[in-house]
């Protein structure tokens, strides 16, 4: 939900307490080749439906979180601290 955002630490909070960064992609390793970096910085799946994105609880606990949010219904399926690595590191 983009009106109230479930922060894993603070519970439901209003959108204006957050800063939105966008797609929660995994940063390539230092030596990765240019195309991986280009993909990471510029290309987006931009799906209709489930989407993992970085939000920052700027006016709250100041933790970066990863929301799994539906881009059509705005429903949030999951919310976790960004420091807790996702189950698979594989890039989507």
């Amino acid at each position: 939900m983009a009106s109230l955002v479930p922060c894993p630490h603070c519970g439901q909070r209003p959108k204006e307490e957050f800063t939105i960064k966008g797609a929660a992609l995994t940063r390539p390793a230092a030596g990765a080749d240019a195309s991986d970096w280009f993909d990471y910085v510029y290309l987006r799946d931009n799906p209709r439906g489930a989407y993992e994105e970085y939000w920052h609880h700027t006016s709250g606990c100041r933790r970066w979180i990863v929301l799994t949010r539906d881009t059509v219904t705005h429903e949030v399926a999951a919310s976790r601290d960004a420091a807790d690595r996702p189950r698979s590191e594989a890039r989507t």
Partner: protein
Amino acid sequence: MSSYRLPKGGLVDRKAPLSFTFDGRPLQGFAGDTLASALLANGQMLVGRSFKYHRPRGILTSGAAEPNALVTIGRGGRTEPNTRATVQELYEGLAAQSQNRWPSLDFDIGALNGLLSPFLGAGFYYKTFMWPAPLWEKFYEPFIRKAAGLGKASYDPDPDSYEKSWAHCDLLVIGAGPTGLAAALTAGRAGARVLIVDEGSLPGGSLLSDSATIDGKPAADFARDTSAELQSMPNVRVMMRTTAFGWYDGNVFGAVERVQKHVRDPARHLPVERLWRIVARHALLATGAEERPLIFGGNDRPGVMMASAMRTYLNRYAVAPGQATAIFTTDDSGYALARDLEAARVDVVAIIDSRPSAGVDYRGKARLIREAVVCRTKGRKAISAIEVHRGGRAETIAIDALAMAGGFSPIIHLACHRGGKPTWSAEKVAFLAPSGLKDLDLAGAAAATTDLAACLAEGAAQAKAIVEEFGWSCPPIVLPKVEGTEGTHASKPLWSIPGVKGKAFVDFQNDVHLKDIGLAVREGYSHVELAKRYTTNGMATDQGKLSNVNAIGLIAKARGVSPAEVGTTTFRPFYTPVSFGALTGPHHGHQFQPVRKSPLHDWAKKHGAVFVETGLWYRSSWFPRNGERSWRESVDREVVNVRQNAGLCDVSMLGKIEISGSDAAEFLNRVYCNAFLKLPVGKARYGLMLREDGMIYDDGTTSRLEENRFFMTTTTAYAAGVMNHLEFCAQALWPELNVRLASSTDQWAQMAIAGPKARAILQKIVDEDISDAAFPFLAAKEVALFGGTLHGCLFRISFSGELAYELAVPAGYGESVADALMEAGKDHGIMPYGVEALSVLRIEKGHVTHNEINGTVVPADLGFGKMVSGTKPDFIGKAMLQREGLAAPDRAQLVGVVPLDPKQSFRSGSHILAKGAAAALENDEGYVTSSAYSPHVGSTIGLALVKRGPSRHGEEVVVWNGLHGESTPARLCNPVFLDPQNERLHV
């Protein structure tokens, strides 16, 4: 004849008369009246003129859907155009003006448009006014703009206040009619946190207009007693005069409470309106239903009214619509009205029922005409007769008021705000709320349940189910006994009426009539959205509350499909219009954004600082002194004094971040493009932070105070952004690093002490030895002050190019320390200097700020190419920095620029053209990023980003500023105008 007040009855307080005016005419009403009921009570049936044809219009409804009775109320900054007379509560001294008429409501020149109506059909303006082209803006459009619009807004500022508030509840009940009251009572008794909102001034909704009895007492009394019980419960909050206008994600509802819109002189300690954001675990829509008009010729004539509205005026406000009324009905609700009218001794001349038989057994005196329709009305500014068609026969009946009952549309607006599409029910002849809604249900008339007893039962049952779902146990529901009412069975849809004569209106306010809809379909605008946009049906201030379903019915008929196939246009917030004031709350004028104050603000103030907004901060720009005639004089003095003696500048608003942990150095090494791993303890270093795309993000100095403790400074503008960025790096990118970040911007009052005398002055208050040997350039450490009574941080860094220090002391002591420094520097000629002087000093020295770091430059563009580490395995921005375009030979890069003639000047934002080149975009070589008058150089100097700039030092160019008609011959040069060897830093 016209409408009038009945001698007795109603819920108005006859002991509390109220005077008000309409178009300046003094009138009387009672407490409990709306403006509309009071106007009708005074026989004022003509209240407005229509949008396009300026037809005389009366009061059609008794509520939020009113399309005709829009008036302007209030004066000066309290002027409110387009106020619906049907919802505006009457108050003593209310002054109402009719709209969209000239010279007067009674005689309106605009009515001539009616004669042109054959040429003013739907979309006519798309087909003409195109020749000759220039005339559109010079003639046609100004004329149309003047003719269009409704009320006139005031330009005066609003004297009243507004506020916002949050509310949380288990169950939000929207609508305090029978269904809502029953629901709130059930949930409240179970102990749930209940919030019930209603747009009206009294709880009860339709109960207030109903002649039925509940448990033997009048419906209105039942409403009063029920709300009294609700008010007495600590877990229930009843909010009247509150309209829920939107349903948003997270089951958040927007609502506006009209706290003081029903009083003449608002109390100062209260807002006039309050915006609510209501977070509800579950919501129940008990919003009732809207009665549909019928589409016959002259259905807009004053005296024609919705049947349900007529009943409300009669029963709630004791106002009779006229003396000889007729009722045109397609369902049984018309008969309840007939019964109530007759009970009030108002003559019902005829009931025209489109159906062969009614669902109720009518025993009244009125003549009953079945299988008949009204095809037109007669009269000028008020209805005088109707023409009734039955079979082939037409008959004219003289009347002075007509009620129309076209069936009911459930009010499902909010339920559709989150993308769900309404579904058509052929059985109910209505669009119902989308199915499968989450955390929201509908009950009562909003769910097409029409019978009063059934509504009470449904409200209670739904509430019970909801709170039991949440784990409360619900006491058994005892339903009250309802008498004196018949269920109104679904109407037989009557989209278009045979033999209609004259204009039959679909959208009253926008003057969209029957033929317009047909035309739109004929011309290919048959999709419901296209038809709406082409005819403007449903786009008026009532958002089609009365017109949309009828329009859909007509489109369906024209296309030969069912309304289900046509579908609706999109229901969008707001349910009823919401004022900017309410949406803004307290955040306007000076409160638009908070003020962030430096701990040295008052110190600067007492030295006469002129302040400037910098983000949320106020920074001191310069400190004028007696006899200085211009800001330039003051700034020049401050600059010269720094270069000759010493100055004190408040730099507290620089971002400050404490970075600690065993991986702090490694962390900094990754977030800066230059090396930080080996920065010695006690040293400061200038750092460049890139974005992942390789562009420079921000710069600043970072000092190593201890092995694992760093003190970072950022620019003022990017302080917040840098902190977010660092937290992202630490939490999301490299959570394995042991690093902790604490913003300490507000902890420190920070002062730049710059100039040849800086050391001598500072040494007087700093306990430690700060000689060049002991504390050289770029030294940084914690120091004791005043013999150990205070501790702070001292940095030997310089933005001005002079011997300079930055001293950070605990903010609460900032002013005191600044005073001490001014005292200590008195004999050394110390002066405060502001950001203007600071800017001159840094431009003279060729130091960049965000004027140059504009989000599109890489380090090499600003001469920092060598700073970028080639050895570090990784840092933010490293990979993208390798792209060919970012190393292209003709990139704009930093240079200095001076006018050839020192007497000439140029401004930032001017562009650079090669000498002799024509002023054309293809000759654009770059632009001036910063400029100032330099006392040191003796002329204006500038920094610029110019193609291949560094290789063009000495080249003559033109600084071009077409906006000001300036074209200044100038020379590109080294951006460092002063002390390129940095000797002054190291003294």
